[in-house]
């Protein structure tokens, strides 16, 4: 399986080629080169997945962790060293397939979407860099390698959000995304250091093996402020995951990140990077489950709250990409809850499997939604719902694929979202009825806001488009990825996922619980029906309801003023009481000391320099006097 290294290496090579020589290439050459590179990586990933799941991966009915490549990169002590390598296990192989597939679709789509943009080659170079970092992240053999690629992902996301760097809103959005996630990564790093300090290893296999006994033994009896050290470490690591996966209250960067090009939103901010946090928790799942169950429970409550919170905000947003952004936050929170309600082995591990399943299906239908939205934006040159309506006549392919994705995310049989969401609901019901109730309500809200979006874009009142510039179907390079992802959305639900992925890597059987299926489908249908009543004709009813809700509506429209709270926290509290004193200390104490040393030296040398006047005879005189002094001292003292 050594060839899996190429999956990571090819995008890196493409980044170097396009980054260094891209400026000399034509747009078409750069785009095709980047796409071909990604196609190679995709083919290799499929080969790796086939070999892993059907040929080499399973030994005695258990999926193995295979390190197909590993080099020692840095050694701290006899025990502690950082390796760089490629780790294959069920979830990393699954992620390889997801990332390369979505990335390839986005590469193809961008050929048309970004056509004629300034910096086209840079765009493709950055896409390759992002794909490289994300692939490196998922195949990390140890937590430190993951951290390295984690930051690389953050950097490439930053530069892609700020792709239109002449637009001030894009620049501030990219800065916001970088700073918020970087702040969260501080917690991640401290967590890594805590964990590795006590266990003496970074390696995932050693940390999670044997029911995380290494972590349990090495931190046994140690606690800080009444909470065990293992819990502290895992909570801090989760903080990093929460930052990347936009969990409340660190979600504020994701809606703004929609300033980037739409295919980038599809790739990074819907399908791949934002699920890195879920992947991180899944990767360390045994440690969470055995060593820090309290943190895992907290993950569940944060996730459930985020899911509800984001779903409520999504209802009122009018920028179609922002609706999708909040829907992403909500769906990722779903995955987090699924992880937290999971047990370890067998059917208890349903939540773990459901979480990965939802990650898998969500990646495709959410990428499809974003690419569909991109196609719409491409046609009407606006992000605002108000500028759209009745587009189903003009854009049949986009309409059909968008509808499929909406049905999928709403959880309607037989689309993929139905299966994964159903598994999550079952897992939640068996673990904690409260979480189930929240998720069930969110499922209804999801159906409602997605179909609000759908009806507002494709139905609604007859809109008078300028005949000469009437919206038209997007070019083939954009419709083919849409169609391909739509097919995936239709079929991926039937994957026997529990045969491949489970908490303890042992395949198990799932069975359908009809009550949950009925409850989930009913609430989804209810959401769709309400959306249809309100939005299919595009009348005044929604506005009236909004007015009658008054303050609640305004608060939701402003995302519950979370951005303002953060601004207050940073500007009025952190800057004033922390940054300003530190700046004063730096300016006056640190700089003052240095300036003082310089000033003293300067004064001292000024007073001495009169001796160096260039008069040879004066030098000789001083020399003679000195000799005399030494002679007298030697003779008489």
């Amino acid at each position, binding site marked *: 399986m050594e060839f899996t290294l190429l999956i990571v290496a090819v995008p890196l090579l493409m980044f170097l080629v396009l980054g260094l020589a891209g400026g000399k290439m034509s747009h078409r050459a750069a785009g095709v080169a980047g796409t071909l590179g990604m196609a190679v990586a995709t083919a290799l990933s499929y080969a790796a997945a086939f070999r892993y799941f059907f040929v080499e991966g399973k030994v005695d009915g258990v999926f193995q962790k295979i390190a197909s490549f590993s080099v020692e990169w840095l050694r701290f002590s006899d025990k502690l060293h950082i390796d760089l390598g490629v780790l294959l296990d069920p979830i990393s192989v699954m992620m390889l397939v997801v990332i390369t597939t979505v990335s390839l679709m986005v590469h193809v789509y961008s050929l048309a979407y970004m056509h004629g943009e300034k910096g086209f080659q840079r765009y493709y170079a950055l896409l390759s860099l992002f794909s490289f970092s994300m692939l490196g992240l998922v195949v990390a053999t140890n937590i430190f390698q993951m951290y390295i690629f984690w930051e690389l992902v953050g950097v490439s996301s930053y530069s892609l959000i700020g792709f239109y760097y002449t637009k001030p809103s894009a620049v501030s959005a990219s800065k916001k995304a970088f700073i918020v996630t970087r702040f969260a990564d501080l917690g991640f790093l401290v967590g890594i250091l805590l964990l590795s300090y006590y266990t003496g290893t970074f390696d995932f296999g050693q940390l999670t093996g044997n029911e995380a006994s290494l972590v349990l033994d090495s931190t046994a009896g140690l606690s800080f402020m009444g909470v065990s050290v293992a819990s502290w470490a895992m909570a801090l690591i989760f903080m990093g995951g929460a930052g990347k996966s936009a969990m409340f209250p660190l979600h504020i960067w994701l809606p703004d990140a929609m300033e980037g090009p739409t295919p980038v939103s599809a790739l990074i901010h819907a399908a791949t990077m934002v699920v890195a946090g879920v992947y991180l928790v899944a990767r360390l799942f045994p440690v969470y489950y055995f060593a820090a169950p309290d943190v895992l429970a907290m993950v569940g409550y944060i996730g459930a709250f985020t899911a509800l919170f984001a779903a409520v905000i999504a209802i009122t947003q009018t920028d179609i990409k922002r609706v999708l952004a909040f829907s992403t936050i909500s769906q990722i929170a779903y995955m987090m809850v699924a992880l937290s309600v999971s047990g370890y082995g067998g059917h208890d591990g349903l939540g773990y499997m459901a979480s990965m399943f939802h990650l898998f299906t969500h990646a495709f239908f959410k990428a499809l939604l974003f690419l569909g939205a991109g196609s719409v934006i491409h046609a009407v040159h606006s992000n605002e719902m108000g500028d759209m309506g009745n587009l189903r006549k003009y854009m049949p392919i986009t309409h059909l694929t968008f509808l499929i994705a909406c049905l999928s995310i709403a959880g309607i049989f037989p689309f993929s979202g139905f299966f994964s969401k159903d598994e999550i609901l079952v897992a939640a019901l068996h673990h904690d009825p409260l979480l189930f109730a929240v998720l069930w309500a969110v499922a209804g809200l999801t159906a409602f806001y997605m179909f609000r979006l759908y009806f507002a874009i494709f139905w609604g009142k007859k809109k008078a488009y300028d005949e000469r510039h009437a919206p038209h179907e997007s070019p083939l390079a954009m419709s083919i990825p849409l169609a391909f992802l739509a097919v995936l959305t239709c079929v991926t639900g039937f994957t026997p996922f529990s045969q491949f992925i489970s908490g303890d890597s042992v395949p198990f059987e799932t069975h359908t619980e009809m009550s949950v299926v009925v409850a989930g489908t009913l609430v989804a249908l209810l959401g769709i029906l309400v959306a249809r009543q309100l939005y299919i004709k595009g009348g005044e009813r929604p506005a009236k309801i909004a007015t009658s809700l008054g303050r609640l509506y305004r608060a939701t429209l402003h995302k519950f003023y979370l951005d303002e709270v953060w601004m207050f926290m940073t500007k009025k509290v952190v800057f004033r009481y922390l940054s300003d004193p530190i700046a004063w200390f730096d300016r006056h104490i640190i700089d003052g000391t240095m300036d003082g040393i310089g000033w003293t030296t300067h004064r001292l040398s000024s007073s001495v320099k009169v001796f*160096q*006047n*260039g*008069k*040879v*005879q004066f030098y*000789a*005189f001083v020399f*003679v006097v000195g000799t005399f002094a030494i002679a007298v001292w030697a003779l008489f003292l």
Partner: protein
Amino acid sequence: MIPMNHYLVVSTILFFVGIYGFIARKNMLAVLISIELVLNAVEINFSVFNRYLYPERLEGMFFSLFGIAISAAETAVAIAIIINVYRSVQNIDIRHIDKLKG
């Protein structure tokens, strides 16, 4: 035989005359001559100590010979320098030669 002290008194006088001249004279040629006086005083001391303290050996004498040769070479170099200084500033007053300070 003349006692050793007599020689030493002469060389001491010569030495300090040289030092005084080196510090006090303004003409660079005079300064050069003063340096020669100092060197000569040292050479007298070498010869005298050799002759009176270790009459069976010759190292002191050779040192004197070396010193004479070196001072001749040094004088040649110094005069060359003085000539060049004169060419550039039309003067050999040592008080004007103070541009070499670092």
